[in-house]
């Protein structure tokens, strides 16, 4: 009965929130290129998305491309994104974002022949599984007030909170001892890794938007992210006792690097409800260290540039659908995923007066 009341309440709340308000007309008449960099006052925006990344290449220390498929360690990353934005005023917006991702990386199986038998004596398989929530982002966007709407500049400070632990779960290694029927010893090394950085980080950025004649928008964004302090995590070691793996965790400290990410994009409306976007984005991380190996070792410098093409369709004043294809161009010490992103954005003014018929 309580569940029924709750469901009815959620349904009624949903209906009430979805009822039209006078301010809905603002969104109906806005193309993507007309939208300001911050939300309108009272506007609540849900952004959900799914991204599939095919990780079949990486960039090495010299920036050369290495085929992971040839090395037998290609993998797929599935990412689910959720972002909530709210316009406090016409020039102040708050944001909260959280992503969940999953990737499994398999390695070449090792067959070990220690005797002259027809079948291998040992079969060793390695498998690394990366799953979990990324760090949650809390931030704001402040728009600099200008008389003209040809130019917009925003400042966006924020923090990245390690809401979910990034300490990996214990491995799930297994061993199948040989029998007369099956003379091979089969060992599987299955490790677990988390997706979050596990470290409180400060973020600060700025965005510049220029509206050119012909309804073309050009924007540029620069963001800095750096760690607040040294963080702690654990790594696992194991020992085989009979046919059981015994695990022990070793704590270690690490410091995240300083990351600069940047993006330049050009958006133009092909027709009133269909806009195309061409973007170039990049990320560069330097500094930082880790004691995971038992020694303090500086993190390698990491760099990645990506070219994206995408579009957005305004299905209704409230509902926008977007898609983009992201192609890695260059990089250093970094995976080079080719990815496709599908996003749905829903907008409403929940605290505005409803229109009554």
């Amino acid at each position, binding site marked *: 009965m309580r569940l029924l009341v709750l469901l009815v309440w959620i349904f009624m709340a949903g209906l009430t929130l979805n009822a039209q308000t006078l301010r809905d007309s603002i969104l109906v008449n806005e193309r993507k290129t007309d939208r300001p960099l911050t939300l309108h006052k009272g506007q609540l925006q849900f952004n959900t998305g799914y991204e599939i990344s095919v990780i079949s290449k990486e960039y090495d220390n010299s920036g050369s491309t290495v085929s992971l498929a040839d090395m037998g360690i290609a993998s797929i990353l599935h990412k689910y994104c959720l972002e909530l934005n709210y316009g406090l005023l016409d020039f102040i917006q708050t944001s909260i974002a959280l992503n969940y991702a999953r990737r499994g990386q398999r390695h070449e199986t090792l067959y070990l022949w220690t005797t002259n038998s027809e079948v291998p004596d040992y079969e060793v*398989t390695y498998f690394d599984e990366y799953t979990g929530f990324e760090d949650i982002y809390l931030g704001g966007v402040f728009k600099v007030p200008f008389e003209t709407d040809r130019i917009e500049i925003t400042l966006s400070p924020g923090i990245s909170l390690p809401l979910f632990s990034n300490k990996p779960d214990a491995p799930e290694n297994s061993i199948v001892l040989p029998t007369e029927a099956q003379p091979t010893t089969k060992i599987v090394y299955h490790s677990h890794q988390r997706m979050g950085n596990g470290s409180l980080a400060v973020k600060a950025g700025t965005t510049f938007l220029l509206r050119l004649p012909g309804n073309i928008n050009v924007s540029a964004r620069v963001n800095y992210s750096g760690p607040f302090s040294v963080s702690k995590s654990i790594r696992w070691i194991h020992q085989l006792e009979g046919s059981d793996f015994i695990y022990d965790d070793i704590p270690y400290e690490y410091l995240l690097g300083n990351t600069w990410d940047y993006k330049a994009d050009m958006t133009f409306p092909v027709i009133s409800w269909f806009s195309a976007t061409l973007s170039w984005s990049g990320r560069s991380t330097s500094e930082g260290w880790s004691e995971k190996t038992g020694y303090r070792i500086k993190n390698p410098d990491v760099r990645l540039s990506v070219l994206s093409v995408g579009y957005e369709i305004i299905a209704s004043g409230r*509902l926008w659908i977007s898609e983009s294809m992201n192609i890695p161009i260059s990089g250093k010490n970094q995976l080079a995923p080719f990815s496709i992103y599908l996003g749905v954005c829903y907008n409403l003014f929940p605290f505005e007066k409803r229109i009554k018929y």
Partner: protein
Amino acid sequence: MKRIFTSLVFLIIVCTSFSQEEDKLLVAEIKQSTVITEPATLNRGFFKIGSEFTYAVEDRVLAESGKRIYSTGNGWGRSSSENLHFYYGATNRIEFGFILPYKFRSMHYSYINETPASDTSILIKWKTQGNGIGDIQFTIRYQIIEGSKTKPSLTAGLTTSFPTGEKNPTNITDTLIFDYPTGSGEISVAPELTFRKITYPYSYSFSSCFLYSFGCEKKMLPYENTIHFKSGSRFILSCNFNFLLNDWIAVQNDLTYDNKQADTYKGTTMITSFMPSNDSWALIYTPGISFQFKKIRLAQGVSIPIIGKFWIADPQYRIMLQYIL
């Protein structure tokens, strides 16, 4: 009495003349129908051309237990296809179709053989890829019960596939490096029956299909002799629910149950321990979105296997572009 009768006749005539009539659509308007409002088969003289691109990776599988697991070893593959299709409405109830597929597939698998006694370590790589024309298909569909805005339709169809794609491995460098065949080598037929109803702005349909392959002689592995191969039969049940967001955007939802019997090699379901074949099935959900820009339709969706057994567990992305002449 005569006056009353005459008055009644006049009254009925006047009522009939004032009653609403079903609005007649212009030919151009019919050609701009969305995935919701379009008829079950093309109208007479209409011609539809299109292209569908699919892309999938093979990373995880639905195991025998139904659990979603990563494939054994480091086997990893990509497959995509580009299908050009042409449909023609011979009458308002009969439609002919022709599908020309171009396929691309690549597979990687590697392992290491290590013998410490002789201090040797050998990396074995299995790397195949194939691209080319696949098996062409001809279809005929007939509306047994002709649908309208208010009436449901019942459509029977028959799809026949002919082995135009390469059926044997080619460009064989060695047993591990060769070009993958892009065709099955078999003739197959697939009768289907579809029930569809439009309740504007919604439409829903139920369909069933049975695919039977006649088998062929082909090489399964490089340097092996030709053997008799037969694809397992497939039984497919699907239901579909679409709704319009506005006049030109439709959200599509497909739920498909696909059951496939094991392939047979020389009458058995296993040729080597590396090539076993099993009865398999999956329940696949495909959300999608379709945009109608006048006579052009752009549709895309992602097929997600939800539950199943011995089935690829990764989603398949598809995008389609159509134009009606």
